[in-house]
């Protein structure tokens, strides 16, 4: 079980890195090509989809970056408590705030999923052929994953408090 979880974690991190590399690389490539096309080639290629694609990549980078931020525990917080308190009380406070964050993310994920379901019925398209809801599906997916990450952190913290020897080992 532990082994399965560990390899799941590794696979998750790899997937995030791969997605970020592809998204960022595509963004740089398409943006630079557009400039070259306009300034040097006199706009000889028609790239009506390029602007739309780059803007959609920003949303995807934001979402995948947020998933990665929750894995690395790097979401922006007011980092005061760890500087003035220490010991078990800090762990309990972390449990409370992360449980709260897990709940909020689950709620946002659910609302985003409802919205995406509605978009399925509207049938809007972007980039020519791609249904809009597929491009937007990253939002509910990301929030469900972020919620899961916060929940895992809560469990890890609880484990650390209740069974300190085992957690240290």
């Amino acid at each position, binding site marked *: 079980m532990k082994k399965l979880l560990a390899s799941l974690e590794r696979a998750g991190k790899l997937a995030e890195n791969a997605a970020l590399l592809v998204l*960022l690389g595509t963004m740089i490539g398409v943006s630079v090509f557009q*400039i070259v096309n306009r300034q040097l080639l006199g706009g000889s290629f028609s790239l009506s989809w390029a*602007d739309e694609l780059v803007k959609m990549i920003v949303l995807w980078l934001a979402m995948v970056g947020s998933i990665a931020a929750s894995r690395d525990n790097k979401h922006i917080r007011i980092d005061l408590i760890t500087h003035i308190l220490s010991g078990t009380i800090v762990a309990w406070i972390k449990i409370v705030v992360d449980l709260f964050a897990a709940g*909020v993310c689950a709620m946002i994920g659910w609302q985003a999923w409802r919205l995406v379901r509605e978009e399925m019925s509207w049938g809007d398209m972007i980039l020519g052929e791609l249904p809009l809801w597929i491009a937007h599906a990253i939002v509910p997916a990301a929030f469900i994953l972020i919620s899961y990450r916060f929940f895992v952190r809560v469990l890890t913290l609880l484990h650390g408090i209740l069974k300190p020897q085992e957690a240290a080992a």
Partner: protein
Amino acid sequence: MILVSLILLVLAVLGAPLFAIIATSAMMGFHSSDTELMTIALELMSIAQMPILTAIPLFTFAGYLLSESKAPQRLVRLTNALFGWMPGGLALVCLAACAFFTAFTGASGVTIIALGAILYPALKQDGYSDRFNLGLVTSSGSLGLLFAPSLPLILYGVVAEVSIDDLFRAGILPGLAMLVMLSGYSIWVNRDNRKPMGSFSLREVGAALREAVWELPLPVVVLGGIYSGFFAVSEAAAITALYVFIAEVLINREIAWRELPRITRDSMVLVGGILMILGVSLASTYYMIDTEVPQKLLGLVAELVSSPTSFLILLLIFLLILGAILDIFSAIVLVVPLILPIAAGFGVNEVHLGIVFLAAMQLGYLTPPVGLNLFIASYRFEKPIMHVYSATFPFLIILLLSVILIAFWPALSLFLV
């Protein structure tokens, strides 16, 4: 509603992720005004409708690449060759190099780690007191926020819907004023530390220039491109990212290919954090505008103060307190939509407001309880936090004076716009 706000405030101070706090308050607002809760997702998805936002991941990636290469060393060598011979020269080198570097890395604490590690021992060797060094390096770490293409400038432009080109121009003179005042203080403090004037060597300047030959076009491309109107900001960002990648990975080969996934991840984690806060605050701003919160605030403030001058005083006090608790990115997305209409009511120019806002928030990096630079310096140089705080205090006062100057001399910001 008041009880819920209070609970959220407590959770925020206890360290709950700020995006979750903002999202909750937005959803509570939607719920109480019978707005469909899905609106929060709709606002998040509108991240994909702001073309200027592409600049944020691109500049961040370029900044992280630069800080992982040996560009910081080359930058220090070059500024040292240019200014090092003057009295107090190395302190000036520190200020100039840090400001330049922070403009590209967006004041995320990277500057202290990348440049401080080189400058701190060098200053010590040059006979500056330890206390002075610590204060100088810590406060230099957020200098340069006002210079293009810093992330907070771009984010303010996005949130306030102000031309980012104008902001880039407006930041130049106030940023220089901060540099000059800190330089003056550094020279004055070290007036007794007289050393024989170092010699200015054209040969060393030439060698430093040759070494940095691949980075030198960077400011020309970015700043020249943007200021001349040849590139849009997001285009300059794409060019910068590609250029830095080619220079540091392909030509200088200081970053191995296998390091790229980690560097990409580190930079995009920051981007994810910033854009997430921006996304949820779009939702909370939507609610606040909908319920006319800014107008009510304006009415309240108008009862307290009557002139633009007293408004600016009140604003500065508010921003200094805000900066001490909240990081600069959260402060921009949360507070700017609220104070923009109020400032307009008092006839404060929105570009000038942006410069004042960022200059004041820069002090937040150095003020307890949550000054980021204080903690990074304490950790990096292994000094107790109280020691870092007291060493930084004189610099904080100088910066405070510069913020007051910037606030009450609008022409300084608006002269180049």
